[in-house]
């Protein structure tokens, strides 16, 4: 039994969810872990904040780009609520966290993340270069900062075309007009530059991997998306075993010299059957809960590795395990919203202890 306190971010559970709730469920339901889960959020509207059956305490954090401010906030939380492992599950946190890792280690918080140099390779603006250097198929893409460039880019990449934010957000545009609308929407939410990517028609597949500190792949699970939301997010999926896909995923992870959790997103081109790497996420995917049901509890294993344990690699997983998302209303007094906004923290500890007793 592993006993520790885990803090994690990515608490949103909307139709564009983050992986925090899935990660926490993998710990709670494992039967091999005992401890507290601290939710870390950047906005009071992250819906998972209000789920007292998952979290013991929740804290609001400042903008992750303000490294020293973020560190001081985590240090303050650490003095009240000893955290053993911090699992960052949002892409934009990884900009500042590698620099903070040694300082967090000094105050007793372990993480399992790659170095800043390795992380830079996964950035959406650099992915095409990485793929080209390593002979990995990926869609052609161009980075733009002015909407005036959309016409020329479409002439080069054709239609439809994928318009992507540098950190998050992605839409398929079927005309230059639509591309311009998405350009402005994504710019407003995620800033510049904007990536325009060739659209490859085919089914979408993801592989989530976990790599230890010696760069040994400890686990990997592949999934085919069965249903997508209008934002292109997987709403349903099924675990599959395609040796070609898994081998390609492991090759990419090794070429990146990755450490920690990683998600690789592919499209299998309908006409050629070739896999194209669409995106790399420096964390587990939002569907990671299914890994625990398929025989590889990758979140729990990531915690064990973060704590310094040496673990043996998984050798297989169950195929044909399907996930289906569904929406659920969380009901709580509105005072909880006031509490998190005004004090920046929310505790379910008392409520949970009553429930247990």
């Amino acid at each position, binding site marked *: 039994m592993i006993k520790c306190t885990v803090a994690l971010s990515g608490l949103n559970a909307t139709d564009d969810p983050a992986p925090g709730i899935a990660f926490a469920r993998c710990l709670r339901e494992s039967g091999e872990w005992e401890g507290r889960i601290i939710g870390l959020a950047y906005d009071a509207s992250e819906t998972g904040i209000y789920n007292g059956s998952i979290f013991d305490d929740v804290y609001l954090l400042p903008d992750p780009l303000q490294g020293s401010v973020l560190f001081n906030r985590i240090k303050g939380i650490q003095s009240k609520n000893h955290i053993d492992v911090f699992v960052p599950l949002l892409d934009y946190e990884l900009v500042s966290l590698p620099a903070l890792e040694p300082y967090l280690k000094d105050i007793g918080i372990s993480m399992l993340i790659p170095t800043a140099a390795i992380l830079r390779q996964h950035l959406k603006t650099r992915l095409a270069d990485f793929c080209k250097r390593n002979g990995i198929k990926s869609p052609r893409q161009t980075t733009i900062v002015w909407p005036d460039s959309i016409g020329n880019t479409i002439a080069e990449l054709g239609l439809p075309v994928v318009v992507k934010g540098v950190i998050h957000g992605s839409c398929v545009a079927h005309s230059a007009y639509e591309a311009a609308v998405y350009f402005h929407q994504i710019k407003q939410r995620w800033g510049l530059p904007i990536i325009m990517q060739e659209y490859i028609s085919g*089914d979408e*597949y993801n592989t989530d991997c976990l790599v230890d500190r010696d760069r040994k792949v400890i686990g990997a699970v592949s*999934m*085919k998306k*069965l249903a997508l939301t209008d934002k292109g997010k997987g709403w349903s*999926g*099924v675990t*599959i*075993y*395609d040796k070609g896909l898994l081998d390609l995923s492991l090759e990419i992870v090794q070429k990146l010299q990755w450490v920690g959790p990683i998600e690789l997103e592919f499209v*299998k081109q309908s006409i050629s*059957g070739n896999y194209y790497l669409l995106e790399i996420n420096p964390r587990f995917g939002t569907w990671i809960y299914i890994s625990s049901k398929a025989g590889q509890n990758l979140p729990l294993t990531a915690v064990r590795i973060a704590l310094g344990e040496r673990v043996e690699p998984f050798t297989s997983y169950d*195929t*044909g395990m399907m996930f289906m998302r569904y929406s659920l209303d969380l009901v709580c007094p509105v005072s909880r919203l006031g509490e998190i906004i005004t004090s920046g923290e929310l505790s379910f500890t008392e409520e949970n202890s009553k429930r247990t007793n």
Partner: protein
Amino acid sequence: MPGITHVLEIDDEGFIFDRDTGHTYNVNTSGLLVISELISGTPLHKIVELLCQKYGVSKKIATADLDDLMRQLLRLELVESVEVPVLD
């Protein structure tokens, strides 16, 4: 001899899950018989005989139906070739 190229998980009701690609299919009982026999490596002319025996149809009809199914499987890339047995 054409065999199934993917690893398929099949239940008794004719629901098929392709564990390589994640695609799912439904087949009727005769389709289930054909695919199960293809997985076992049974030659096509033997499958024709099995269809004739089980469903009491002529060799001509069984061959035509098998040919039709094999072409569908080819389109789905579940077999690499279609070698239709020559009618006597």
